[in-house]
């Protein structure tokens, strides 16, 4: 099989494991972009999703914004930002964040709305403050769904962060862009494989986080 040969050749070449274009460096860069974009998307999406979900207000507006954001092509947005803002990390981050916010925002909102209203009513009735109701009653139950929103955002970022290479940034996109330019298909396939592996690793990380943070009582009944 051609592809397997490419993969084998790419990973067994010692040169690919060292230096500024080595696999560890590129993977690390890719992880950095991902964490940064996911962090920003979560910082924006989680509070808004939690609050709108908790109060039940603004759901329609959210859905509208999310649909609009989804319609934006990431690559096009990056090129536009590049033209507008010039060289820098912002033109890379903006499309990634725009890509990640809708799943985070919408899923968080939906997760909060889907919490059984009875325990929430009981919590208020026993004199719990509103913030406690949100963080101690609703959030623990909504957590699995919220995590799934973050997870799909993370996966999308991992695969889309390859575009950074088009505006001369690093990450795994480097192998793909350079490989295509140099007609070095070994490199292209190697880069794509690394992206896939990173996506799988992301799934693993979220699985572990879920195990650690979601109560057994919620996991088993949800």
């Amino acid at each position, binding site marked *: 099989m051609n592809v397997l040969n490419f993969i084998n050749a790419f990973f067994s070449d010692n040169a690919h494991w060292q230096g500024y274009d080595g696999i560890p460096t590129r993977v690390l860069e890719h992880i950095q972009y991902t964490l940064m974009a996911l962090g920003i998307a979560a910082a924006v999406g989680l509070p808004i999703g939690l609050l709108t979900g908790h109060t039940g207000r603004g759901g329609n507006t959210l859905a509208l914004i999310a649909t609009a954001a989804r319609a934006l092509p990431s690559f096009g947005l990056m090129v536009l930002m590049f033209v507008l803002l010039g060289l820098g990390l912002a033109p890379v981050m903006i499309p990634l964040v725009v890509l990640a916010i809708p799943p985070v925002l919408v899923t968080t909102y939906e997760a909060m709305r889907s919490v059984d209203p009875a*325990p929430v009513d009981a919590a208020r009735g026993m004199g719990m403050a509103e913030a406690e109701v949100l963080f101690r009653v609703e959030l623990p139950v909504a957590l699995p769904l919220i995590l799934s929103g973050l997870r799909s955002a993370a996966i999308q970022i991992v695969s889309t962060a390859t575009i950074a290479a088009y505006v001369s940034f690093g990450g795994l996109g480097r192998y793909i862009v350079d490989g295509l330019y140099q007609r070095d298909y070994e490199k292209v396939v190697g880069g794509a494989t690394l992206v896939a592996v990173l996506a799988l690793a992301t799934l693993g990380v979220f699985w572990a986080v879920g195990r650690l943070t979601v109560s057994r009582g919620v996991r088993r*009944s949800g």
Partner: protein
Amino acid sequence: MIRIDSVTKRYPDGTVAVDRLSLEIPDRSITVLVGPSGCGKTTTLRMINRMVEPSEGRILLDGVDIMQQPVNTLRRSMGYVIQNAGLFQHRTIVDNIATVPRMLGWGKDVARSRARELMERVGLDASLAKRYPYQLSGGQQQRVGVARALAADPPVLLMDEPFSAVDPVVRKGLQDELLRIQEELGKTIVFVTHDIDEAVKLGTMVAVMRTGGRLAQFAPPAELLSNPADDFVEDFLGADRGIRRLSFFPSAGLELLTTPIVAVDATAEQIAARGSADVPYLLVTDLDGRPLGWSEPRDLTAGQIEPERLLPYGRPFVAERDSLRAALDGAVLSPTGWAVAVDGEGRAAGVVSQQTIGEAIRGAHAAAPVDAKAGR
């Protein structure tokens, strides 16, 4: 004491859920709000802990307007139990129960040991402490709901149809448990139900509400059954209000006959001697005196009595303790028309005919209805 003083609730959409309602809820007793669906019971209950704010009127707690204290302080002084328990599914049973004590700043260990104490009080096995709500039956969850409401020992308990989602057998168990707990703790309980039987069983006072959120009658259950204020209340009480009223008359005065009772090893002489013209049947008991069934004396052969060929004896009532309703029920269920009375250990204490019970009922009606909640 909780005083509801001419309270009206108008929801933003214009629905008048409660209309100029006034009620004096006595301390340390169970007051039941009952009425058809949508008559404003829940709204009334939720105004007491300010989950709903009245549009007009005031609610006083020990003479002080409930609006005077911070809303969460008020709520923490009142236990709140809702229909499906509303347990926190991410917390274990013991932590569910410890919620309010923890909110009040108790240490984790103190709160948990208090929670375990309450589990015992509401009849939950200690082995359930570490389980999650999904691992409990509906009836058990409801017990946890009650325990959680009692955890910080609030003087007031608000209960909104707490037992309506469980089957009749479990419901009866929960009702009996509540009465027992109430006997021990003496809380001021406001209990909402749409089930008039539950209201009559649990209430020291019963407020019957009618659609539109108005009070139809506020009275002790015995009085409700004997003197419904109007057609609405009478209708709501149902067709067998007369029978149910018998719950309030003790069976203690009934004259029990012990002659027509023979043991399974009775001799021919005993069988002959115990049968009489007044009592066409004999009740056969086992050697411990527990009833086995009825038979005509001529069908009994000494030494050859076969328990499985006897007529069923229906449902016995406990002499002295049960009400006339139970006695009448026993007589109606017995194919011979005679009710069997037993003692606390289930041994036959005597038999009584429908006719005798009927006379006792006439006598009881002639006297003033007893208010005591004896014999239910």
